[in-house]
């Protein structure tokens, strides 16, 4: 097996162990009910995490996703719920706004050399601020379209519900995997993250790729906002505060290196499911107080980066007798 799959395998093992542990305590984890709910509840931030994976593989970071999700929700609620727009055109307008927003951040990063951290931090303030400007209170959406979307559901024999949000999540996941590994754009993303100087010399269009990466991330965050709006049937400017941290944590737990160049979309998916499982377990258990989830995420993060470090260190190399690309990435960073 190739060494670059080791972090991915570890992510999967932790997920499996966590899930089995949860199953041993609550047998409902064996039903499609919990699986369906896991996919549904984590769909929106999972979609944002897939976008973030591209950004982090390219060596950047996008802090604006939580705010973009909130802005999208408020925009949709305001336009559909209050101004009587049709949902589909509203979504198209919103996705366009989101994509332009991301592309603008990409341009600031590439052409004016503003660090990604800072450029997307301004994006965080701007999107959240615009959401507040649109509305500070929660707006309900009553629209037949929303009703019909909530009825799109596949019901498993054991009453497990495979909802529209879950389906959208899986579709985005498959498209994400395809784009990352089977398109020129995907290769360019890895090249820029691995070594942008070398990529430039090889003729990779760095500027265009960077702009497209941030546009993609904001596009997916907007899509995530729409999915959340569809399932909540309302818009609120205070949702998803600090969500970007969970998203980044999931991407890192999924085996993507923050130095760029290494990572898998599927790893992010498994990590999102892992965090979702912990959340569900803590909710079912009830005896553990809610702040434990933060501590558990912290501990998980620590173990994963520790593991990645071990794999990329010299001793880890001898231990497994492979793992060269990790080392190269570290040196180029």
């Amino acid at each position, binding site marked *: 097996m190739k060494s670059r799959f080791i972090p991915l395998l570890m992510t999967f093992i932790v997920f499996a162990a966590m899930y089995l542990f949860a199953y041993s305590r609550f047998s409902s984890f064996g039903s499609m009910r919990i699986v369906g709910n896991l996919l549904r509840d984590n769909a929106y931030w999972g979609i944002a995490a897939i976008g973030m994976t591209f950004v982090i593989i390219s060596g950047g*970071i996008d*802090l604006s996703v939580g705010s973009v999700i909130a802005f999208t929700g408020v925009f949709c609620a305001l336009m559909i719920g209050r101004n009587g727009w049709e949902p589909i055109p509203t979504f198209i307008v919103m996705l366009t706004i989101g994509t332009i927003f991301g592309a603008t951040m990409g341009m*600031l990063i590439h*052409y*004016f*050399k*503003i*660090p990604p*951290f*800072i*450029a997307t*931090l*301004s*994006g*965080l*303030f*701007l999107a*959240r*601020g*615009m959401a*507040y*400007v649109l509305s*500070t209170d929660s707006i309900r959406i009553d629209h037949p379209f929303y009703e019909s979307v909530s009825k799109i559901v596949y019901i498993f024999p054991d009453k497990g519900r495979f909802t529209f949000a879950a389906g959208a999540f899986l579709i985005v996941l498959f498209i994400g995997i395809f784009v990352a590994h089977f398109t020129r754009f995907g290769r360019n993303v890895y090249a820029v993250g691995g070594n942008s100087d070398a990529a430039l010399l090889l003729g990779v269009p760095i500027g265009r790729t960077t702009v497209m990466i941030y546009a993609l991330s904001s596009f997916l965050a907007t899509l995530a906002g729409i999915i959340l709006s569809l399932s909540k049937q309302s818009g609120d400017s205070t949702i998803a505060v600090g969500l970007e*941290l*969970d998203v*980044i*944590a999931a991407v*890192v737990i999924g085996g993507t290196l*923050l*130095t760029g160049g290494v990572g898998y979309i599927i790893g992010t998916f498994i990590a999102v499911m892992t965090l979702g499982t912990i959340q569900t377990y803590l909710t079912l258990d009830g005896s553990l*107080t*809610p*702040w*434990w*989830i*933060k*501590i558990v*995420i*912290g*501990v998980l*993060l*620590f173990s994963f*980066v*520790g593991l990645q*470090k071990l794999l990329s*260190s010299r001793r880890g190399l001898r231990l497994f007798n492979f793992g060269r690309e990790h080392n190269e990435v570290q040196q180029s960073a």
Partner: protein
Amino acid sequence: MNVEGQQANPAKSGLEGIKTLAISVSSSRLFWTGLALFIILLVDLMISPNFFEIRLVNDRLVGSIVNILDNSAPYALLAIGMTLVIATKGIDLSVGAVMAICAAVAVTLIKQYEAGATEFYYQPGFVILITIGVGAICGLWNGILIAFLNLQPIIATLILMVAGRGVAQLITNGQSPTFTNDTLAFIGRGVVWGVPFPIYIAFVVLIFVTLLVRRTALGLLIESVGVNDRASYYAGIQANAIKVFVYVLSGVCAAIAGMIVAGEVKSADPHKAGLFSELDAILAVVIGGTSLLGGRFYLFLSVMGVLIIQSMLAGLYVSTLHPTTNLVVKAVVVLAVLLLQSPEFRRFISQPFGKLSRRRR
């Protein structure tokens, strides 16, 4: 140290001399940061004509400028620690969470004292020392992860950022405890000679750290580690010790900032205390011209960056704009300041005067 380039080539005379001076002034970081602060204060003055008015009410100076300085104090402390961290090519995302932990520790201990606990370590003075110690331990944890386990700073401090708020809630048991003790409250809301006490704290720490890094070789070593830690190590610099030191200092600064915030409201809110303050601190450092890629750092300019952000917020409060627009204005102003400082952007704008900008290279 921060005004290098301004005195360059003073001997040249005539038009050429003025041109050289203009170029060297415009390439100085102090110039662009100072210009940004000046413009923002000017806008503030236009919004409210008595913006700079300061009155003495109940032996306390009152006015927008005093408020700006008072509100800046905790952020200035964070920015001082953050500047040194960023100078070593690191970043400390955990300062907000450390503020929350330290506020929780201080208030929990002081409540024991108020409840009549007589052990010496519940005395207010010791509580303050213990809190600073807790901040140092948080910084030590970050530093060890980064220096000895070789983790990337952004990930290593993300761990404490995510887990830290959980720890703070664990300490206060999910509550927001309040206290009445005057000693701890004084840190946040005391007044000495008419000036709020936090301003003194920030000022003393700024002077102390500046002297520490500029009057000893420490500043040079920090910059050296930031430019190339491996080369610094081969040159005989204890790169790991330097890294641990800057994170510990950042943790201590966050602890003091946490006590200021707790003292101001006489309570510790594990959810809200210091929320997003790490982002504001990093922003201030970048506005002050310290590169996230490490190397040269500018302590005084970082504090100026904090003042820029706070002056902007103060202007918003006195303006007739609805409070919901605060974040939008903040984003726009921050972007404008960052673009103003980006050489690429200035070159982009000054295309018609391409001759001047080409000569600068």
